[in-house]
C-alpha cells in the first residue's frame, strides 16, 4: 500500500484535520495548474473540491488503492475534470492534441479512468435528478431512502396508491431524460 493512502483515508473518514492538510499541501499546486490552463483562482478551488468529492466516492464505493503519490493522482483527476469543463463551456477547441495532453497510458491509471468514468456517470444522474420538479424529486428521494412508503404517503398528504403512481411516473421521466442525455 502506498504511503499516501492516508490521504484517501482522510477523505473517506471525512477527517477535518486531514482534509485541511490536503488543502494546505496541494491546493496551490492545483490552482496554479488550472490558472495555467485558462482558468481562474476560483475555478481552481472549485475543481479541487469537486475532484476530492469524486475521490471520496471512489474510495467509499470501490476497493480503491493508490499506486502513486496522492499529488499526481489528484492532478490527474483535476485535469480530467477541468478538460470536461472546458469542453462543456466550449472554451477549448478540443483537438486530438488536447486529448493527448490528458491521455492515460499506465495500466493502473486506466483502472482509475474506469472508476472516474463511473463516478462521472453517477454525478450526471444526480444532476438530472435536480432538473425534475420539486415534488418528483421529493418522491424519488424519499421512496429510495425511507422504508415505509405508506408513511411517506401519509406525511405528504397523498394516498399510497397515488404515491406509487407518481413514483413510477417520475422515475420513468428521469430515466427518459438520462437516456436522452446519452449517459446510458
Amino acid at each position, binding site marked *: 500500500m502506498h504511503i499516501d493512502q492516508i490521504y484517501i483515508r482522510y477523505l473517506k473518514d471525512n477527517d477535518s484535520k486531514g482534509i485541511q492538510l490536503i*488543502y494546505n499541501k496541494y491546493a496551490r499546486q492545483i490552482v496554479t495548474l488550472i490558472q495555467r490552463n485558462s482558468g481562474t483562482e476560483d475555478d481552481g478551488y472549485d475543481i479541487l*473540491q469537486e475532484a476530492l468529492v469524486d475521490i471520496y466516492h471512489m474510495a467509499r464505493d470501490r476497493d480503491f488503492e493508490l499506486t502513486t503519490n496522492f499529488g499526481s493522482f489528484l492532478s490527474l483527476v483535476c485535469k480530467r475534470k477541468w478538460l470536461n469543463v472546458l469542453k462543456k463551456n466550449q472554451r477549448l477547441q478540443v483537438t486530438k492534441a488536447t486529448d493527448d495532453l490528458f491521455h492515460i497510458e499506465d495500466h493502473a491509471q486506466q483502472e482509475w479512468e474506469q472508476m472516474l468514468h463511473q463516478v462521472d456517470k453517477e454525478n450526471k444522474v444526480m444532476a438530472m435528478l435536480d*432538473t425534475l420538479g*420539486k415534488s418528483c424529486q*421529493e418522491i424519488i428521494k424519499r421512496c429510495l431512502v425511507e422504508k415505509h412508503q405508506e408513511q411517506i404517503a401519509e406525511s405528504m398528504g*397523498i394516498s399510497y*396508491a397515488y404515491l406509487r403512481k407518481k413514483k*413510477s411516473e417520475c*422515475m420513468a421521466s428521469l430515466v427518459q431524460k438520462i437516456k436522452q442525455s446519452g449517459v446510458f
Partner: protein
Amino acid sequence: MENKADKIQAYIDGLLTGDELAQFEKWMAEDEELRAEVHAQREVQETIRKRLTSKEDALRANLRQARVGLQTGRKGVVSLYKVYLPVAAAVCLLIFFSIFYLYTDDSYLYDLPAMQSEVVRGQEANVSYENAVQAFNAQSYEEARGILYSLIEADSSVVQYRYYAALTYVGEQNWSQALPELTPIAEGKSIFADEAKYYLALVYHKIDQHEEAKTLLREIPSQGKLGEKAGKLLDVLEK
C-alpha cells in the same frame, strides 16, 4: 389501467408475484428494449440511493471549511470577468427569451393538469376516486367536485383530494371560489403546495391582482416543468 412504467416499477419494487411476475419475466425475455429499460431504471435507483446515503454534504462542509482555512488572511482580487460575465450572460438570456416568447403560443399556461389516476399493482382501486378522475379529465367539474368532497369527508388528511377539488373551480373559471380553496394548500407544506401556488397565481391574474400573482410565481422553484411554466407566466405578467 397500468402502463409500462408502472409495471417496471412494480417489478423492481418486488411487487409482482405469481402469474403477473411470470408474465412480466416472459415479456422481458422476449423484449430487449424492455430489458434495457428495467436495467437502466434499476441502475439509476441504485445510484440515487447510494448517493443520498453517502454523507457527501458533510464532506462538502469540511472541504469548504478547509478552503476558508487556507484562504484566511488572503483576500482575493475580484476580477472584472467575475462581475461582468454573469451580467452579460443574463442579458443574453433575457434577449433570447424575450424574442422566443414573442413567437410562442402561451395558451397552455392556462390549462389545468390531468387528474392523476391512482390504479396500481396490488392495490384495490378506489372506485370513487377513479370516477372523480374520469369526470375531472372530461371537464365535468361539478361531478368531479361532488365525488371529491365525499372523499374529503371520509378522510380530510388527504391533500390530493382538496387540491383537485379546488382545481374544479379553476376549471369552471369560478375565481371567487377557487381563491379560498387554493390558498391553504398553497400555504401548506404538501407536495401540491407549488402547483397550488401556480394556479392561485393564475386566479389572481384573472381577477387583475397581478402583484399577488407575481409574488406567488416567484416563490415557485425554477426546476422542472412547473418551474418553467411559472417563469413563462411571470414573463407574460411582466410584459
